[in-house]
């Protein structure tokens, strides 16, 4: 069991590096570029649509092939979300995330990859984001929701 955890973690480490390199190469790690992509009415930079396109085509084909397997290589099951209905949590959460993303040009992945490149700004963002994530989870647990 312990060996399996070490193997899974090693895979996760490599995957994290590849993901981070993708964020850097594509320019997603730069909040100014994200804001230029979101600024449809201004001097629009459409290149991030190609990031999304490249990622979706690759993942879409890859997932299809992977799901022919009965199970992942290092794990007993594929852990996929089972919820199907569009609920108010999904809608309100996505609106709040969109607001934060639009204000800062940062979402969780690029913010983490920018940690060693940026200065105080990125620390402020990551600290506040962690407060948001773990504060939310703490409150949810205290309220006893599932």
């Amino acid at each position, binding site marked *: 069991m312990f060996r399996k955890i070490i193997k899974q973690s090693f895979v996760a480490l490599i995957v994290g590096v590849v993901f*981070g390199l993708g964020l850097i190469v594509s320019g997603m790690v730069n909040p100014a570029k994200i804001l230029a992509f979101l600024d449809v009415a201004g001097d629009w930079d459409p290149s991030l649509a190609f990031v999304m396109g490249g990622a979706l085509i690759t993942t879409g084909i890859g997932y299809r092939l992977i799901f022919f397997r009965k199970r992942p290589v290092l794990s007993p099951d594929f852990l996929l979300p089972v919820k199907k209905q569009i609920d108010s949590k999904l*809608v309100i959460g996505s609106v709040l*995330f*969109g607001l934060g993303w639009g204000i800062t040009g940062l979402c969780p992945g690029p913010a983490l990859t920018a940690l060693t490149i940026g200065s105080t700004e990125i620390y402020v963002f990551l600290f506040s984001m962690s407060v948001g994530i773990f504060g939310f989870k703490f409150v949810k647990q205290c309220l006893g929701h599932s």
Partner: protein
Amino acid sequence: MDIFSLIPALGGGILIGIAAIGLMLFNGRIAGISGILGGVFPFNSNDTLWRIAFLVGLVIAPFFYRVLVGQIPEITFSVSWPFLALGGVLVGIGTQLGSGCTSGHGVCGISRFSIRSIVATLIFMSTAALTVFFVRHVWGA
């Protein structure tokens, strides 16, 4: 904006896709950053280490980039600290309440043709675009 600036965009996107495929093929997990980060606590001997390893990988990626390409990626901030703090809290709460961010819903979820993820992505993309429109063109910051 020229055709050559699209090559790194496409290439970076493909790298992100390869990472998402790797995590699913080996570990059977969705490569959603906010979900992986949010699941670090409470500590669980079977479920925490891979999450931390993934996050460490994201954080150290710039060192590999520097070794491979020989330069530090450029990042520019145009937002003041109070707004970075506000935006950070909104991103934190929003991704937990909405069960995902750009990676989990936008890449992995849409790749599975999840209706929830398609709806979430449309909502956060349009909200973000409207926010930028308001900040830059209405409020004039």
